[in-house]
């Protein structure tokens, strides 16, 4: 046996005893060339597509680049712009006239807000970022920053609308009253009484007492800042304001509506389904008509409150209905075992929702929630149709101005850029959040 083996070994002329050194892969499959071959020229059809795409890009860029960079910044009207273009490049086509943005950018951002009070808008915006930060990046930032978030709903409106400081303080005090009413009554009279008291007492405070007391305090100590009327609000600031309110309020209302729609209680379910389907069935513009024309009709005679507040209410309801459907999707996607597991642990309905169901359902629905946010933020532009001067409304006014009659690309490019930044960062944040909450299993 071993004989034949060595016989065979002898018959082979050469046997390698050591490994060859590793060779570099061929130059055409690595590095930039390899990348090109793999992604752009992998086949004939692919190469043709690449050439077409390159020609397309070259065509777009040949128009876009001169337009962007050979542009006029210092001009007071479109005619002046055209004269400068004629003098510099000999033609008026294919050059941007950024003079309109330079002249009107403050108006596009702040609307007709008094210019010596711009600092208040800026401060409110910075405060918005500070208040959002601990919620958005809960791991990197200290939890104490949440105090700013809690104070934000009272400080922001005060900064924007101005007026006496006692109003927002009284509003905040209502929540404090409710909190302590619950704290004190819960051990004495049980949770039901405590909850009823925690709801009733603040309502009595807001609608009964606070008006008298703030009035008296304002007379005693008139601390406040210059008041600004709602009709001065406008521009991109209005979009951000409406967006923040609608986004912030729609999430909790949406959760409640989604739970109502999933509920076993037939009547509650019917009310929630009716509300959601009604709101989702009509365009936002009809709801804005309701806000501008009809909402005052539905309220007690003599009530007349601010158009911006009315728009906020309708936009919040609109957003809440869409949010409810997104969250319902998340609830439906949870495996039945999660509900059964929560039940078997003896948790009651609210405990199960808070500890088991909602965290998972919300996580599943993050992409949908964020795209609803983006949709709502974009939909704030619709207020221009009911006569508020948001960016689109202002752009129409600017284009109707004799100095800038006939300009459109520059103006709309600027507005689109503003919206793009906000919406794009929202969608990137949702991707970040999905990655952060990814547990590696489903």
């Amino acid at each position, binding site marked *: 046996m071993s004989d034949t083996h060595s016989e065979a070994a002898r018959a082979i002329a050469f046997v390698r005893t050591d490994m060859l050194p590793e060779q570099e892969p061929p130059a055409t499959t690595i590095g930039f060339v390899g990348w090109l071959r793999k992604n752009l020229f992998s086949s004939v059809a692919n190469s043709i597509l690449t050439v077409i795409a390159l020609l*397309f890009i070259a065509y777009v860029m040949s128009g876009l680049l001169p337009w962007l960079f050979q542009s006029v910044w210092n001009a007071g009207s479109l005619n002046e712009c055209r004269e400068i273009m004629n003098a510099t490049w000999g033609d008026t086509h294919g050059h941007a006239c950024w003079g309109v943005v330079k002249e009107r950018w403050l108006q596009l951002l702040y609307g007709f807000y008094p210019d010596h009070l711009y600092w208040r808008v800026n401060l409110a915006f910075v405060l918005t970022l500070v208040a959002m930060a601990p919620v958005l990046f809960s791991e990197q930032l200290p939890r104490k920053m949440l105090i700013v978030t809690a104070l934000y709903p009272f400080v922001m409106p005060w900064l924007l609308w101005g007026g006496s400081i006692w109003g927002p303080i009284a509003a905040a005090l209502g929540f404090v009253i409710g909190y302590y009413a619950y704290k004190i009554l819960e051990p004495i009279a049980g949770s039901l009484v405590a909850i009823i008291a925690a709801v009733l007492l603040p309502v009595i405070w807001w609608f009964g007492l606070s008006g008298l007391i703030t009035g008296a305090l304002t007379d005693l100590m008139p601390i406040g800042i210059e008041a600004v009327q709602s009709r001065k609000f406008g521009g991109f600031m209005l979009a951000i304001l409406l967006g923040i309110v609608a986004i912030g309020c729609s999430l909790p209302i949406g959760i409640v509506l989604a739970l109502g729609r999933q509920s076993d*209680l037939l009547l509650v379910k019917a009310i929630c389904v009716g509300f959601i389907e009604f709101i989702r069935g*009509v365009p936002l513009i*009809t709801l804005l*008509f309701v806000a501008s024309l009809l909402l005052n009709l539905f309220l007690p005679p003599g009530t007349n409150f601010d158009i911006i507040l009315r728009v906020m209410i309708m936009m919040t309801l609109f957003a809440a209905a869409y949010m409810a459907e997104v969250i319902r999707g998340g609830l439906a996607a949870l495996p039945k075992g999660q509900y059964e597991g929560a039940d078997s642990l003896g948790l009651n309905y609210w405990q199960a929702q808070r500890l088991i169901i909602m965290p998972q359902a919300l996580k599943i629905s993050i992409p949908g929630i964020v795209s609803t946010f983006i949709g709502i933020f974009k939909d704030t532009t619709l207020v*221009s149709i009911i006569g508020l001067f948001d960016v*689109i409304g202002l752009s129409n006014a600017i284009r109707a101005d004799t100095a800038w009659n006939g300009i*459109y690309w520059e103006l*709309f490019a600027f507005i689109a850029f503003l919206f*793009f930044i906000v919406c794009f960062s929202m969608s990137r944040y949702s991707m970040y959040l999905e990655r952060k909450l990814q547990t590696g299993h489903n």
Partner: protein
Amino acid sequence: MTAMTDPARESFRLSMLIYDTRYRSFTIQAVALLGFMLFGAWLISNTITNLQTLGKPVQFGFLLEPAQYDINQRLLDYNNRDTHLRAAFIGLTNTLLVAFLGCIAATILGVFVGVLRLSKNWLVAKIMAVYVEVFRNVPVLLWIVLAMAVLIESLPSPKDFRGDNATASMSFFDSVAVTNRGVYIPEPLFSRSLGDVHLLGDSPLRMDLSLDLLAIVLVIIASIFAIKKVNARATAIQNSTGLRPTTWHVNLGIFFVPLIVLLIALGFHLGYPELKGFNFQGGTHLRNSLTALWLALSLYTAAFIAEIVRAGILAISHGQTEAAGALGLRPKRIMSLVVLPQALRVIIPPLISNYLNLTKNSSLAIAVGYMDITGTLGGITMNQTGRELESVLMLMLAYLIISLSISAVMNWYNSRVKLVER
């Protein structure tokens, strides 16, 4: 020894309405219903009081008064002596028209972009990604207003087409005129027309149905039916003999020959737009408002549809394709029998909800002056008559009916294709 007895039946106490889960749901529902009804009653009584103070009781009689305004882009006949109800109906047909055109264009473009975004070609995929991100992240109202501005400001006016040194010329062999007053395209005309049939008499919903069009549609339906028969026969032959007869030339003939014969019989020819005086005459006039709205809505919605298509294709795991290949199916059959049916189940529900969004977004027509139902009933009619409550209610009702019918279709489809789980 004690006998086993049932525990004494608890007598019903009032506190059980709150603390006993068996009764609590009744309590909650009763409270909810009471609260809801009180709230509704409060709203209604407020409204009645307010309307009485204003001296405007809820009446729909204004709908039968003459509208006294013109609607320049319309499908059905209308003049300013017609009623507000007729104007609203014309608006509704305009809404449906732009929604229909928009859904078709958005679907074609969206599928194209969605598939190309999955292309192995890096450059093409990136271009499509840029398109999707730019259009998704900017408000649709801006696109609509921008499209309108571009059409009005950048296109040549009809007078540029005139004279020997005209700066503009008609495209597509002198058949289409693109001007800043709208696009003029050739219109189909029939010299031996069958005429129109007037439906619904003199009511506000009256419409003229062209018998020529009806005949063409019927012939096409009959042809498709015949083609189905031919294919079924081919399949039967294939099942019995194993050889499939070639059918494409027969099918082509069945589809086109009757259609062409009918068109010749009807005397079909095109009416071309011609420059007469200061404007183009003849042809079909698509106003800028319609074109702008259609373009903007389709481009915007296509970006969403592209993402849906991409997600739908990605949702089908590669194992499905491989398993189908292992069964011996060829690539074309893998696509049609395995991948597409599963991908469509993922794609169609969000696709339909995007059609719904497009329809609702078409209400932004009011920003460019296209007379859809928001522009007629919620615009001029409301401002002329001062009947805000009635107009907005009817407007909402119209949109609700459209939305609910689309959702009904979607629910029917969902229940048909649903995977049955435990």
